[in-house]
């Protein structure tokens, strides 16, 4: 999943620039296959610098969700968020998008897919982008 969002990343190391656009990356241990997000250098299982940077599939299921009625900096309430289990097997916290009305659209266990979108502004007024997940038709 690649995108060409406006602004700067909410956290730089979540993303990688490619000629086709921005993508979200994780570390995978080339020895034991474990995934880590965000990227890191050393695999705690193999105790070696065996990591390779890999793009995240962006496909997963919604473990659980909630809706915040309190704002955060540039994020206007109400907004939805949840834990997502990715196809790769690891879990990730994320904002949820394209899912209103929340309590109707969002279901525990539903398939979701990753997008890169704007997320408010930082203290200096820079537009931020981040990854989010939205409901997906894809059951695979």
């Amino acid at each position, binding site marked *: 999943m690649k995108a060409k969002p406006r602004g700067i990343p909410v*956290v730089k190391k979540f993303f990688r620039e490619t000629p086709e656009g921005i993508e979200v990356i994780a570390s995978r241990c080339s020895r034991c296959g474990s995934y880590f997000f965000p990227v890191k250098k050393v695999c705690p299982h193999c105790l070696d610098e065996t990591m390779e940077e890999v793009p995240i599939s962006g496909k997963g299921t919604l473990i*659980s969700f909630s809706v915040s009625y309190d704002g955060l900096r540039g994020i206007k309430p109400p907004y939805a968020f949840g834990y997502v289990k990715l196809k790769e097997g690891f879990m990730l916290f994320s904002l949820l998008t394209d899912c209103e009305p929340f309590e109707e659209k969002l279901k525990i266990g539903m398939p979701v897919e990753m997008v890169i979108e704007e997320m408010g502004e930082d203290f200096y007024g820079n537009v931020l982008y981040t990854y989010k997940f939205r409901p997906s038709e894809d059951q695979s």
Partner: protein
Amino acid sequence: MRKTAVVGAAQTPFGKLYERDTRDLAEEAVFKALKDAGARPSDIQVAFVGSGGMDPTTPMMIGQIALEQLGIKGIPITRVENACASGSNAFHLAWLAVQTGMYDVALALGVEKMSTPTPEQARMAMRLGGGDALLEGSMGLFPPGIFAMIAQIYMEKYDCRREDLAMISVKNHKHASLNPLAQYQKEVTLEEVMNSRQVAYPLGVLDCCPISDGAACAIIASEDAVKRFSSKPVWIRASVQVSGTYEDLDDLRPDTTQRAGFQAYEMAGVGPEDIDLAEVHDCFTFAEIMHYEDLGFCNLGEGARYIREGKPFLGREKPVNTSGGLLAKGHPLAATGIAQVYEIVQQLRGQAGPRQVEGARIGLTHNGGGFRHGDVGIVTVHILER
């Protein structure tokens, strides 16, 4: 294991105490704990000071500055920061210091100022600092949201309804109405909780602990040193601290609290059935339901029924959060863990007044701190006996 006891304990009033600062809150708690023990500042040999540092004016080496107010100086003093478990962690380290045999008398203080400069700033700090700021806090997760997500799965899987969550708040406000040091000494109704302003679906504002200021202090002594003090000792039968394991769990239900509870029961040689009363970390209503199960007060999936049957109310089977808990007594982060100890000490000494649990012999405290990747960062459990 060396036999150790709490020989002094105290708590300031909790609340949004705009006119008070870290120093005078600490001064009051330490002064009252020394008086309670019949101790002199020079009796204290080592001290640990919990501080979440929520107030931007909280200085580095706050331990030295806070304790100097009462003339406790020259000795080793260490600040402990472990999120909402900072206070109980300071208490655990004070206990550990006496356990080593190196010291006979140790002091644990927890102090937190959250209402200044503004509660909004405190809430923002909690979002970014209450857990994994980089990965979760900066992306919109905040403490009520974490427990809301766990509650959602739980309520889908087990017999637990919205009103069961609300009943926790009703109970703890009812208990707090009997506690002159509590932030909210007014009862609330089930309807008020269920209709309270939404914070994180399904949790409303009355399902959430407040922003609070306050301090609490405890003095611990070895068996040999207990006789130096005039108070009735309350024995520390278990003191346990564990950390989260942050596994990828589909049910967001890690075993961190269970591990802490199990280790504490083993250390004390007692079981959940022996606990007469408990102070548990009810940061949000749902959390208390989950902790009934984690601490073995009931089976997995039966937490909601436990509150529905009224068992944790004062005067019933096993009163939980007789102080009002975090929800109604208030939650000045680093003060909370030691305030829990204070409540149990009052109860075991028979000094809890209108909220006294008759015949209480063994009490438990459970304090959690921080959150990341679906797991709690720090859990401490203490078991005290008269």
